[in-house]
């Protein structure tokens, strides 16, 4: 383990490329505007799609007339829900009933269920004309009452969104581990929290969703140039709906302008694109507008935690808790109800409590469908556990630092099995907290509080922690639906030596800024004994390449484990083949006597006797007469990395759900003007532990970006709806993401606890920013002296916190 404040270091050539901040391979094109993002792709005769969207949150569609639109010169055609319903089947649902019975199509069929839902697609020769034509589409609606509050969604008097389901209940499950009765009997106090609320937002990647889709009629295949970040999932959703094999759906990307999970569930729009490309016999472009994205794409799960009870000892020892999680999925289940189990990867947070019960209920509301958002489902749960820690500390008048240290899973307990069978691989949370406190200047806080008080300000400090669980065991989906035939995980890479000795790497992933081309090259260069400059990693993803599997994609904090382990495996295969070939060509020298160095295979004791990679590539690919018949060398190696997982015990909801647990501890200091509620984050520290770091600068960049998103979410960002289900924040005017002037001073630190479970000692990372939400909430509580009950704390709410605090906590003797 190493401990050090993060500092930028100039890359110094050493024995290994891994661990160095080598220049990113991606940067040369991206700094020159030479990236190829989806809207940069053009095809001859391409039409532009514009979606006509619902102005109502909930309504029956009584009629649709596309006649006037289709007559407009330059309009190529339209697509309606009725056509979609005849040409496709509803998307496969992951849920058990009642959610299983939802009928979800690419366009609204018969009914709309949220403002912005696509109803008709119009295609024209320009973007502007497609927009004009969409104005001519006449849709008659019969509005219905909208449900915008999950807490009333199950009331009998409320309308049902999906008649086929018969209820707004989508999925429910009870999770219970340990002995709750015993825990509450042992407790000195029970801290009861009536209601905590995690709000609705997402990461708003700067590039919206999009696709250019063309249909090859002769072979019945679609090519989708798209920024979808999980093609494996999209294919599984689209193929059955479109009644075609997955091979008929070729996914291609090069550069993606941010994803953060929000680009996983574009499959409904992609189906509409495919149907139009076939119907109109021309390529089509769909580029989502910012307002479309905010209205309709991938909101993060809004979640309530109701009737929470926490069993604690007087000294702050946490024994267990019970709570009811009420999750608002929005109008459709596009990736849900997986959020109903993903949180369980981090059930106890960083703490040792063993007795936990969580009743999970997910309901449908007339809001945009929820889908993964950076920190998916775990962020909500970890915000809850962190809130509990700070509320308990406040109510018992204990030091939040001491409560944390008393209850942390200890370094010496690693690997640690949680009450639900997850295994925390490595880490030292107490040490991380010490680094964070040092960086934030913990010892000066009392003095600073007094000084702020003299100026009429309230100053507070808070700690926030997250576990960034990475590399999913998809077997956890069976806890949602035992019928699902998913388990484990996989990722693929191929590495080959071409005719002129080019080292060519293909990945199954769909990077969105994480620098996969660079880090993959570092791993390859170390194994092959060459420079990273000699390694060509193909940019992006193409399902025509033989380098993808069912779970390929970029999501869920896993590349440093799944992607790089696949690269490592394929490169080791190639290295072994090069040596086998070298052994033959160099006159039967044993392979053990050979080494790879300086772009050659050579005899260790006689480096002059060397065969350059160029010769190896040429011999196998173009000059192979006379080679021994039994020489099984292709110099084209494909490796599938499969992490070691078992299928979880569905009955007990028990098993290892993720392979690695990167950890984050953040600390924030806020200063509030109690007159107005305006506050500033005046100091901030972020400490990260993601195991072995292949490229420290990229790791730190992820930490910074995730932190910024968390600070935006806690202070400003929310998808707010009015009572009629109209989104109040449909663009960057109303939805304020952090700007350059919003950023607080930042100190970063790290420790490195190598994972014992992964080939490179790495852990997936990048999603740990939720810690910033928790830290600011804790700091606001510390400054105001009142319990913070919501994850969204704009100035108006902080004014309320100071001037009209809510009473959500009660402490009783057990």
């Amino acid at each position, binding site marked *: 383990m190493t401990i050090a404040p993060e500092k*930028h270091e100039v890359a110094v050539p050493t024995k290994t490329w891994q661990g160095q*901040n080598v*220049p*990113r391979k*991606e*940067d*040369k*094109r*991206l*700094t*020159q*505007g*030479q*990236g*190829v*993002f989806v*809207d*940069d792709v*053009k095809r001859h005769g391409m039409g532009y799609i514009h979606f006509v969207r619902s102005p109502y949150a909930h309504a029956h569609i009584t009629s649709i007339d596309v006649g006037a639109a289709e007559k407009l010169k330059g309009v190529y055609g339209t697509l309606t829900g009725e056509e979609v319903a005849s040409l496709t089947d509803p998307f496969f649902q992951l849920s058990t009933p009642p959610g299983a019975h939802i009928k979800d199509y690419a366009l609204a069929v018969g009914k709309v269920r949220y403002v912005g839902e696509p109803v008709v697609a119009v295609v024209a020769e*320009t*973007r*502007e004309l497609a927009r004009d034509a969409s104005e001519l589409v006449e849709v008659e609606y019969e509005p219905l009452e909208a449900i915008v509050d999950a807490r009333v969604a199950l009331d009998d008097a409320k309308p049902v969104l999906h008649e086929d389901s018969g209820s707004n209940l989508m999925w429910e499950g009870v999770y219970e581990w340990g002995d709750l009765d015993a825990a509450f009997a042992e407790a000195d106090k029970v801290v009861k929290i009536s209601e905590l609320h995690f709000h609705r937002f997402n*990461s*708003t*990647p*700067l*590039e*919206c969703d999009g696709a250019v889709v063309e249909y090859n009629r002769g072979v019945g295949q679609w090519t989708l140039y798209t920024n979808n970040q999980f093609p494996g999932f999209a294919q599984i959703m689209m193929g059955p709906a479109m009644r075609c094999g997955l091979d008929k759906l070729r996914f291609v990307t090069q*550069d*993606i*302008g*941010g994803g*953060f999970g929000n680009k996983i569930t574009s499959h409904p729009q992609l189906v509409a694109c495919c149907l139009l490309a076939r119907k109109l016999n021309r390529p089509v472009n769909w580029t989502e*507008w*910012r*307002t479309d994205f905010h209205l309709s794409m991938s909101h993060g799960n809004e979640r309530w935690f109701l009737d929470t009870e926490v069993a604690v000892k007087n000294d702050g020892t946490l024994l267990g808790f019970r709570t009811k999680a009420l999750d608002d999925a929005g109008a459709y289940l596009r990736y849900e109800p997986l959020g109903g189990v993903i949180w369980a990867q981090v059930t106890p947070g960083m703490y040792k409590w063993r007795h936990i019960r969580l009743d999970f209920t997910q309901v449908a509301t007339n809001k945009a469908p929820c889908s993964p958002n950076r920190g998916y489902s775990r962020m909500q749960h970890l915000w809850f556990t962190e809130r509990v820690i700070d509320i308990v500390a406040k109510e018992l008048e204990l030091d939040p630092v001491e409560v944390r240290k008393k209850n942390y899973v200890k370094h010496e307990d690693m690997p640690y099995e949680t009450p639900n069978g997850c295994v925390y691989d490595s880490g030292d949370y107490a040490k991380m907290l010490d680094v964070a406190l040092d960086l934030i200047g913990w010892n000066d806080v009392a003095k600073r509080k007094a000084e702020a008080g003299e100026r009429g300000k309230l100053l507070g400090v808070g700690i926030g922690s997250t576990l960034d669980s990475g590399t999913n065991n998809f077997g956890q989906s069976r806890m949602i639906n035992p019928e699902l035939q998913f388990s484990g995980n996989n990722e693929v890479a191929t590495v080959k030596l071409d005719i002129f000795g080019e080292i060519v790497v293909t990945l199954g992933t769909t990077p*969105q*800024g*994480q*620098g996969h081309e660079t880090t993959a090259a570092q791993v390859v260069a170390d194994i092959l004994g060459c420079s990273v400059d000699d390694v060509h990693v193909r940019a992006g993803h193409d399902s025509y390449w033989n380098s993808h599997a069912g779970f390929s994609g970029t999501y869920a904090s896993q590349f440093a484990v799944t992607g790089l382990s696949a690269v490592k495996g394929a490169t080791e295969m190639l290295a072994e083949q090069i040596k086998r070939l070298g052994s033959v060509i160099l006159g039967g020298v044993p392979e053990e006597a050979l080494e790879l160095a300086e772009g050659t295979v050579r005899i260790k004791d006689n480096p002059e006797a060397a065969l350059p990679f160029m010769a190896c590539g040429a011999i196998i690919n173009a000059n192979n007469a006379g080679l021994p018949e039994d020489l099984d060398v292709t110099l084209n190696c494909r490796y599938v990395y499969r992490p070691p997982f078992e299928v979880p015990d569905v009955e007990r909801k028990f098993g290892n759900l993720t392979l690695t647990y990167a950890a984050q501890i953040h600390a924030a200091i806020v200063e509030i003007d109690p007159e107005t509620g305006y506050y500033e984050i005046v100091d901030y520290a972020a400490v990260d532990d993601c195991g072995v770091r292949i490229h420290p*600068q*990229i790791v*730190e*960049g992820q930490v*910074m*970006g995730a*932190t*910024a*998103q968390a600070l935006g979410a806690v202070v400003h960002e929310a998808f707010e709806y009015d009572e009629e289900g109209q989104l109040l924040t449909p*663009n*960057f*005017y109303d939805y304020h*993401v*952090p*700007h*350059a*002037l919003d*950023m607080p001073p*930042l100190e970063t630190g790290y420790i490195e606890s190598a994972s014992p479970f992964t080939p490179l000692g790495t852990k997936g990372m990048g999603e740990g920013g939720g810690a910033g939400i928790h830290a600011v909430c804790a700091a606001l509580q510390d400054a105001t002296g009142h319990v913070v009950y919501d994850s969204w704390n704009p100035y108006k709410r902080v004014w309320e916190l100071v001037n009209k605090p809510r009473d959500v906590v009660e402490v009783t003797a057990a």
Partner: protein
Amino acid sequence: MSSHPVTVTINGVEYEREVEARKLLIHFVRDDLDLTGSHIGCDTGNCGACSMIVDGTLVKSCMMLAVQADGATIETVEGLADGDQLSPLQRSFSEHHALQCGYCTPGMLMSATALLRENPSPSEDEIRKALQGNICRCTGYWNIFEAVKAVAK
């Protein structure tokens, strides 16, 4: 929809096209002239991904019609490098890891370029103010400030 002849010089190359009156400058540059380095991230002039320098002034090209640019000299991200040689600012962005996905980068580089021309020695505060019109969702801006600082005189 009426069309109008528009002549612009972009990165030293003159282009002459018929353009619909309502077409935005960014759509003209990207769709009609195939200069796709400048990007679009919003509908409202907030994000700055489309920033260009028009007749020496930094503008968000989604907030301007193409016909308004008739006769203008325009600089975009494609013109920053000298052949294969990146500009010091482009190199600094890479060295400081001031970009991740790279989608905001063209606009960010144009804003920083405009700043450094006007004020070759900006303070951190001046850098922040100059970049406040450019949204980045990946980096949190900290490394961008460092990248600009490093090339300031």
